[in-house]
Every structure is written in structure tokens, then in C-alpha cells.
């Protein structure tokens, strides 16, 4: 078994001035632990680091030792009340399980079940593969950092903006569509609006064409009952809103007069 070569370790910088009560190969001062944890992408990354640090082969991990080390890190971080992602604790449990299983004699019948160590090793190797792939990707030449793209402005080139084209058939289709829609809609309208506000607006305006001011009351003919009065009232309001008519009152409580505003 190789001894840990901490001096080759990229983390040696944060390794000075250690408290003596830390495990002998955990050369990290407590205030650097958070930084330390951030340096890892997860439990697999941490595990991979522990293995590499001791020049171990992934395929030949001494489970007991690695499990112990991993758990020491985890305990230390928990002791410092650092919030650990659940994945780290899950891995801790998994390692403990593998270790305990290896201590038990393997029954012959258990061959069909995959060796838990094998599963871990596969995952570690797979993660290592993509950790390396990410580094490779990062070192590829890339636009902005290594590659300068070349463009020439084209403000001086006039660009036409062509108008949309229409075919006669499209016009026909549009017409047929609007007509079939109108057909569906019309009976509806008639039922809902026996007296059309629109028509009433027109007749109100007609009455206003004859003389200057018309008394408000005269417009509200009662021949059509309550409904007629309401519709006429709405029509007048609508005309007022459209600035088609104006309403005047000489003094408070005096009769209202309506007059059309003639467009010139």
C-alpha cells in the first residue's frame, strides 16, 4: 500500500497549520473545509480524489480504508455544521454496506446478484470518464476565447422588403369563411338583441338632424316599453361616448337637451 503523497496534492495550499486532532491524512484546517467541499462535484468526485491521492487503482480499492477515510471527512464536515448534500450521506451509507458485505462469507448461490463493489467501481470509472471529458471539452478551442470570428457590416447594402403575395383563391376562401361564420352568428344576434343599440343610435341621430336641441325626454319614446327606453338610453350614452352628441342642462334639475355634434 502506498503512503499518501500529500505534497503532490493540488490541495496542499490549504493544508498548512493543521489542528492535531484531525485524522492524520486529513490536512485541512476547518475554515478551509467549505472551500474544500466546493472543490468537489459530489461524493463520486470526493471518492475519486481519495483514491487518486493514494495512487490506488480504482479496480483495486481497499474498501475498509477508503470507507473509513470518506466517513472521517463526512463526520468532520458534519461536526463543523456544514450542510452536506444528501448525496454525500447516501454514499457514506453505501460504502458502509459494501464494507460489511465484504466481511461476510459469500454464499455460493449469491452469484447472480451483482457484487456491490463492482457497482461502485463501475460508477467511479464512468464518472471519471466524464470528468475527463468535461476537462477535454473545456480545453477545446472555442469562440470568444480562442477563436475570433470575422464579419463585415452590411449597412451599405440595400435590402428590399417585398410585399406579401395573395392568390385569388385565398381571397375566395376568406370570403367563404367569413360568410359561413356570419351564418352561424346571425340568428344568435337577433334573439339576444330584439332592439339593436346600433340601429337605435342611428335613429337617435336622425331625430337630432331636424332641429338644434331636442329635449332628452322626447327621444325616450315609450312605444316599445321598458326595453325600448333602456336601449335608447344606452344608444344615447354610446353616442355621447363617441362624441357624436352633446347633452346640456341650463341649471340644476332643469330638463336635459341633446344635440348632435356635426362633423365638418
Amino acid at each position: 500500500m502506498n503512503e499518501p503523497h500529500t505534497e503532490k496534492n493540488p490541495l496542499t495550499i490549504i493544508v498548512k497549520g493543521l489542528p492535531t486532532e484531525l485524522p492524520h491524512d486529513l490536512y485541512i484546517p476547518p475554515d478551509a473545509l467549505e472551500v474544500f467541499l466546493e472543490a468537489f462535484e459530489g461524493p463520486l468526485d470526493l471518492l475519486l480524489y481519495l483514491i487518486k491521492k493514494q495512487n490506488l487503482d480504482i479496480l483495486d480499492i481497499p474498501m475498509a480504508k477508503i470507507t473509513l477515510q470518506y466517513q472521517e471527512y463526512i463526520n468532520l464536515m458534519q461536526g463543523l455544521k456544514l450542510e452536506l448534500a444528501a448525496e454525500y450521506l447516501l454514499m457514506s451509507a453505501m460504502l458502509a454496506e459494501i464494507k460489511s458485505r465484504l466481511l461476510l462469507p459469500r454464499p455460493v448461490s449469491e452469484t447472480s446478484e451483482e457484487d456491490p463493489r463492482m457497482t461502485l467501481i463501475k460508477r467511479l470509472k464512468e464518472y471519471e470518464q466524464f470528468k475527463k471529458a468535461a476537462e477535454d471539452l473545456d480545453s477545446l478551442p472555442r469562440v470568444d476565447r480562442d477563436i475570433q470570428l470575422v464579419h463585415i457590416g452590411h449597412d451599405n447594402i440595400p435590402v428590399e422588403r417585398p410585399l406579401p403575395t395573395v392568390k385569388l383563391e385565398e381571397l375566395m376562401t376568406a370570403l367563404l369563411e367569413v360568410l359561413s361564420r356570419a351564418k352561424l352568428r346571425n340568428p344568435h344576434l337577433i334573439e339576444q338583441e330584439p332592439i339593436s343599440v346600433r340601429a337605435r343610435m342611428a335613429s337617435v341621430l336622425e331625430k337630432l338632424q331636424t332641429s338644434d336641441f331636442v329635449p332628452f325626454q322626447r327621444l325616450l319614446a315609450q312605444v316599445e316599453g321598458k326595453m325600448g327606453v333602456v336601449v335608447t338610453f344606452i344608444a344615447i350614452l354610446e353616442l355621447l361616448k363617441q362624441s357624436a352628441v352633446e347633452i346640456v342642462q341650463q341649471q340644476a334639475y332643469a330638463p336635459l337637451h341633446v344635440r348632435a355634434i356635426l362633423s365638418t
Partner: protein
Amino acid sequence: MHSNSIKATLEAAIFIADEPLSIDRLLELFEDDQAVTPNIIREALATLQKDYDGHGIELCEVASGYRFQVRVDVVPSLSKWLQERPEKYSRSLLETLALIAYRQPITRADIEQVRGVAVSTQTIKTLMAREWIKITGHRDVPGKPALYATTKKFLDYFDLKSLADLPELLNSQEDEGAKQLELSLEES
């Protein structure tokens, strides 16, 4: 520095710059090389200019310095290529145009009556700008609404000699539609 690599550096620099580069500005690239003088740069630029003979772009000297630009003789092919694909007219515009074509002269309120929704001012403006419709008069009702009709340009565009050449509404469903149109226009 070798003259070829001076030229290559100048070339790349002018290409990546956002504005024309003066000799002084280009000289800054060679601060560490005392041997590179303004004259050397001028010579390199002159050679570079010749290198681009027969190319689609050229190195030009403008008031504030040097820049690359597209050669005039390729501009027409590019201009057409750069043009954006024409947009399509909205269905509401086509319906409005169809109603004006088949029931002219017609007011905006008439169109709204048949379509059941408001006709946007933009639609009318677009059709007017295209000179496919015009105002032929005003209906003699309160508000004197404008009466729209199609133009000669409209007929020309659709390759029609007269409005009579517009396709007829043929089958029964269409007859029904035509009747419906009459009805809804009468009501308004």
C-alpha cells in the same frame, strides 16, 4: 517581424475592428517592434489591397482609416439574398379585402357587421397603402362613414379585366353564403 506576418496581423486587426483603423492605431499593434514604421504599414496595406483584387470584398481607405467592405458588383446579388421572406397577410385582412371586392361600395361598419369583429385601422391602412382599395364616397347616414371599393391596381394584381371577372360564388353553400351576406348588410 516578417513582412508577411505584419500584413496578416494588419488584415486580421482591420477585420475584427468595429470601425475603420488609422495608421496610428494600427501601429499600436507593433509597439514591441521598433522596426515597424508607418511606412512599412502603408506598404503592407498597399500589398494587402492588391491581394484582394478579384475578391468579393475590398480594403478601402475612408476618412478615419482602413476597413473592408463588400465590392459594389456583388451588392445586387447580396441585396436580393438578404431580403427577408415576405410576411403573409392575416386572415382578417384577406376577409376584409374579399368583402370589399364582392360587396363594394361598403363601409367599415358593414364589414364589421358581417365579420362579427372589429376591423382594425391598420388593416384598412395596409390595404390603402397597397393601393388595392380606395374611398369612393360617404354613405349618407349619420357619421357619414367612408365607402370603400377596390382599385384598378387590385384588378391588375389579380389579373382581372373587371370586377365581373371575380370568381362567382357557385355551389349551393356559397349561394346560401351570398344570401347571408345580403341579409347581414341589409340589417345594418
